[in-house]
């Protein structure tokens, strides 16, 4: 068993997005949890085929935007009416109107930070090492091939049955990836 203790997962290669998607549907229905599909571009409908829920990036973006909006108003209120009050044209020291353009920009800026850094956080990127990136054949994943990987740590994983499942899904090439 020492040989398999280092195994990361079974990698199956597919020629077309439709084949990879049908394989994903089968694996989803078989109840696997630690598996993934790797494609050169986002395949339309793959999220459903994998049974993925709606991405949580939106929450990060929302929190960023709310922070930007609140901090923007607080900052301008503090600077222009509390810490350094200057009367301009006899107008009140603070109103929600004049800071709005700046607050608007800060809301967008921090929402954008939330979207990008939230996406990187959810994807655990940057990642300096990944077993798949050592695999020569896997280079097709950023070119024109479609891959399904089932990790050996998946509770439903058993080498013979998983192999059979992937072969029946019509994969063109199957190999074990070392960690």
């Amino acid at each position, binding site marked *: 068993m020492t040989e398999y203790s280092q195994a990361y997962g079974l990698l199956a290669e597919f020629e*077309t*997005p*439709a*084949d*990879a*998607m049908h394989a994903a549907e089968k694996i989803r229905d078989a109840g696997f949890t630690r598996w*993934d*599909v*790797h*494609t*050169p*571009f*986002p*395949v*339309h409908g*793959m*999220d459903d085929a*994998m049974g*993925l829920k*709606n*991405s*949580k*990036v*939106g929450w990060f*973006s929302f929190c960023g935007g709310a922070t930007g909006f609140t901090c923007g108003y607080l*900052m301008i209120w503090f*600077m*222009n009416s509390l*810490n*350094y009050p200057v009367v*301009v044209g006899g*107008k009140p020291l603070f109103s929600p109107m*004049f*800071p709005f*353009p*700046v607050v*608007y*920009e800060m809301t*967008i*800026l921090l929402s*954008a*930070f939330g*979207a*990008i850094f*939230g*996406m*990187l956080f*959810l*994807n655990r*990127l940057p990642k*300096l*090492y*990944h077993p798949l*990136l050592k695999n020569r054949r*896997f*280079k097709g*994943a*950023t*070119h*024109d091939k479609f891959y399904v990987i089932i990790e050996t740590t998946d509770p439903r994983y058993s080498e013979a049955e998983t192999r059979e499942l992937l072969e029946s899904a019509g994969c063109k090439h199957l190999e074990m990836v070392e960690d």
Partner: protein
Amino acid sequence: MSSPTAPSSVKIAPPPREIEREPLVLNNRSLGWISDQIAGIIEGKTPTWWWVTMLISLPIMLMCFAMIGYLISTGVGVWGLNSPIAWGWAIVNFVFWIGIGHAGTLISAVLFLLRQKWRTSINRAAEAMTIFAVMCAGIFPGIHVGRIWFAWWLFPLPNANGPIWPQFRSPLLWDVFAVSTYFTVSLLFWYMGLIPDLATIRDRCKGFFGKFFYGLFSLGWTGSNRHWSNYEKAYLLLAGLSTPLVLSVHSIVSFDFAVSQVPGWHTTIFPPYFVAGAIFSGFGMVLTLMIPLRSLFKLQDLLTIRHIELMCKVTLATGSIVGYAYGMEFFIAWYGGNPYEAYAFQNRAFGPYWWAYWIMISCNVISPQFFWFKKLRTNVVVVWILSIFVNIGMWFERFVIVVTSLHRDYIPANWAYYSPTKVDVLTFVGTFGLFMVLFLLFVRFLPLIAISEVKGVTNQADPHHPLGGAKGGHH
């Protein structure tokens, strides 16, 4: 590496004629061909024309830096500014460059939300253009403040001068926030779009440096669908955020003028009119850049005539909006009954700067009208020449707005005439050198077409299309 066309064994029934569209990638190219073609530009030998253009642009860029050095060491007296024309070419150039940037964001964000799939062939280069144009724009407000060592006063930074903060009622401060947000968000959006393509280059790289740097900047991207799911959501959110952002940036730039009391500036039409003008000028620049690149890198299958035609149509639409705004400004100047306003507009068209006004009208209102004709829209040489006129016209628009409004205001005793000095001209010309150097480095080292996005709009990428592997009737 991969076969140049999709497998011929697949038979596709043609769609009915009336719903048939020209494909976005011509000649039924395979997925592998797309990455070979685009990554091939980076992997191939540096073309001679690249070195020639680089060797021309580099000294022009250095001249820009030299002029800025001269300005800082001597003072703003080296420019042609006088009283009352305290805003000259620096502000004209700032608005010109920032406007150019707007087309990139329109293509990357607005067209994405409108599901215009043709944007995938041009969005990468247009976003790069945005970033470099905003960099060129950002130079001018920085250096025009006079005592440049105080330029940090633009930002609300804590300082030792007692409690002292910028005044947030000033549109100039709004502009600082708008432009810096615009630059940051555009850069991040552009970089996020690059991540999967950098991974493509990483996986093809042979050399050590290539492997290291493309590997580092692709952040360990594996094309995992769990990642794509978050990535696409972030992309959609950024598109949704960039759309109100791009509209706000040029609106706020127009507030720099519209919030003042100067006749010719103090008008409510400015925000939409500036935004339309910005998109118009930006598409002019995209056409100016992409038409030569398309033939130099043989990208005719990816950047098709249909792409060029569609860009011409956007140019025509926005150019006509700009023309309408010119007309409406005149109408309101007369109908509003304000004698100062009426004079400002008469003076624009028939005063000492009449030549600038009529250059603006002929380049911005008349030249895009040629795009009504399909024969002209599909002729790349004609389109390229007209796109140059658009660039010229939009620079003159900003010159007309800034200078003609300032040079004759309320009191005739204050009236003056403004001409730029050599330093003004050379600094502006120099920013083109800076822009070209950055753009040339971009086309040499980064994928100038979004590889993964173009793949995503082909039939081979569609799991419900026979070329994408769908078999017969589908669920």
